[in-house]
């Protein structure tokens, strides 16, 4: 069964504008409708695994019009986005009752999903920018949703840096257009494959690296993330850390570098440097935190480092003419870690939301002994902590193992050592979370704490199950071929992307 690609964008976009129409009387209906829309998106994205599809908008063929491309990498990102947004939506049904105007929240949430789906499906760099802005503007508003002192301050900081990042991206789009005369990724890719990269395109690549790096919060550009992610409501933190920085930052960066402008030794060292800096600095800043959500936010920076490190190592091996098998392995590790991080980090943010909702605080020093009061939260949080620290058999272990193997095989022993070291520090900081939140003395004022069950627990359990069983994606061959290998090939094919898209256009007969 073939699903028309614009549906991924049109469905959440239309419902985002229709939901505010059902006023206060139909509030329950609005939440239900939003959940159904996200569930439909989830089913659609799972059905789209293994497909390669090009959609020509308005029958304007490729050099002229806009096109949407679904390949392995887009399918992987779509599935990740839908999974996390589905669980976040389940969680927010109860959690967002604390805030007013839930309809506006739902509509911003759906707009953010629209933007992210658009970014991963777009086959046109200007369109990518437009969708990136849709997702970003919705996320700025959601970070400031609480309208208290901290939220507004974080929203302003996030918005300033986010808009600067968007301007860098738009400038890069302009430079690419001036140098190649096209905005379509496939056409640019063919141009670069034939003519090589010139000074203008190299400048554009630098602009893209800065812009997308800011969106992905890689270390020299990370200042906004530890403020923005904790200030948002918990389900939104889960969305921001879980998928937004990946779709807007990592996905766009790797798409532009691998498929459009081409890899080189220099850019791969830039990626590796960004990755190592993010991993090390992120994790050491995280250890010293006493705010639950802020600690998690710093870990997002560190874990994004792993993903970029895997992608950078693959680029280095490919551009040095090394064994493509090890390049594929590094990419597999990076992309699998991206999926895993989406699952366990959103789960951690949801559990932090559950703790905050039950106790009214997220300072680690004011908590303690909640293991018996919040059993579901406690068990899911333990699973997620084990996963993020890379304890077998949880999903984080497999992706880190693959990254270490790839680094050793490529002869980058230093990077392998850093990967293991950062993993150990991660484990230490999550032991601290377990110790201060769930073990130890129960403070007097938290004696009567009770857990919120129902959909909130449901969302957390769903993600915890994924944490336990996602290792199957690498171990079980058919899953790996459909889900991960397709995504890896989409990137490692490089300029062959252009040929695939252009010939698919002819096949559709338009």
């Amino acid at each position, binding site marked *: 069964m073939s699903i028309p690609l614009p549906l991924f964008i049109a469905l959440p976009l239309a419902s985002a504008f229709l939901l505010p129409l059902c006023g206060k009387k139909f509030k329950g209906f609005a939440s239900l409708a939003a959940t159904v829309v996200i569930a439909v998106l989830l089913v659609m994205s799972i059905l789209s695994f293994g497909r390669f599809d090009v959609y020509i908008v308005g029958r304007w063929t490729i050099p002229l019009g806009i096109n949407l491309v679904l390949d392995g990498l887009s399918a992987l990102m779509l599935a990740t986005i839908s999974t996390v947004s589905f669980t976040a939506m389940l969680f927010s049904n109860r959690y967002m009752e604390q805030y007013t105007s839930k309809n506006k929240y739902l509509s911003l949430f759906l707009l953010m999903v629209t933007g992210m789906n658009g970014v991963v499906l777009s086959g046109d760099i*200007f369109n990518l920018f437009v969708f990136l802005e849709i997702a970003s*503007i919705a996320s*700025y508003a959601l970070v*400031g949703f609480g309208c208290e002192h901290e939220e507004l*301050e974080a929203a*302003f900081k996030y*918005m300033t840096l986010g808009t600067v990042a968007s301007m860098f991206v*738009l*400038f890069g789009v*302009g430079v690419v257009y001036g140098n190649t005369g096209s905005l379509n990724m496939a056409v640019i890719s063919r141009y670069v494959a034939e003519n090589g990269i010139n000074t203008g395109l190299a400048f554009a690549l630098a602009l893209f690296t800065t812009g997308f790096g800011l969106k992905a919060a890689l270390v020299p550009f990370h200042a906004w993330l530890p403020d923005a992610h904790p200030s948002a409501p918990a389900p939104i933190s889960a969305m921001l850390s879980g998928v937004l920085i990946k779709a807007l930052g990592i996905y766009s960066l790797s798409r532009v570098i691998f498929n459009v402008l081409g890899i080189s030794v220099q850019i791969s060292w830039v990626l590796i440097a960004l990755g190592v800096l993010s991993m090390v600095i992120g994790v050491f800043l995280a250890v010293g935190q006493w705010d639950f959500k802020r600690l998690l936010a710093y870990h997002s920076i560190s874990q994004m480092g792993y993903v970029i490190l895997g992608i950078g190592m693959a680029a280095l091996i490919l551009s040095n003419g090394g064994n493509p098998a090890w390049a594929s392995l590094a990419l597999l590790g990076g992309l699998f870690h991206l999926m895993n991080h989406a699952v366990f980090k959103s789960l951690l943010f949801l559990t932090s939301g559950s703790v905050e909702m039950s106790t009214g605080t997220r300072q680690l020093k004011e908590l303690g002994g909640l293991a018996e009061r919040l059993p579901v939260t406690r068990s899911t949080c333990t699973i997620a902590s084990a996963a993020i620290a890379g304890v077998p058999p949880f999903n984080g272990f497999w992706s880190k193992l693959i990254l270490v193997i790839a680094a050793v095989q490529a002869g980058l022993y230093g990077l392998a050592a850093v990967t293991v070291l950062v993993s150990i520090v991660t484990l230490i900081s999550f032991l601290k979370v377990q110790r201060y939140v769930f073990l130890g003395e129960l403070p007097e004022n938290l004696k009567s704490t009770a857990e919120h069950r129902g959909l909130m627990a449901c969302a957390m359990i769903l993600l915890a199950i994924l944490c336990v069983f996602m290792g199957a994606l690498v171990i079980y061959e058919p899953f790996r071929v459909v889900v991960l290998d397709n995504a890896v090939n989409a990137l490692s094919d490089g300029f062959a992307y252009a040929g695939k898209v252009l010939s698919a256009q002819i096949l559709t007969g338009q």
Partner: protein
Amino acid sequence: MLYSLCFLLFMIGLYCVLVKKNMIKIVIGILLMEYAVNLFLVMLGWRKLAEEAVAPIAAGGDLLDKAGTVSQLFVSRAVDPLPQALVLTSIVIGLGSLALMVAICIRIYEKYGTFDITKIRRLKG
């Protein structure tokens, strides 16, 4: 040459964002960056010989036949219309983000009573 002036304007905007303490001035800096990029996009479709350039609207004389094929002369003289479409889109996006940014500034002023970002420092660590 003119392109580097665009880049200079972009850098002035970035400097303003990074150095200024007043939130409204930061917003103005972001706008400067936006205008620099928009100017750059418009200039991509610009032709050097101004007297030769025509608007990219094919009128009666520019069409060779009823099927709508345009003459080579028109193609060589018309300015590139695509950057203008890009600029329109980017202006609209810029308007949306400007409105949100100013709204956040107003709310912050209500809460903190100041526009000075050095005094708005509850988040740290």
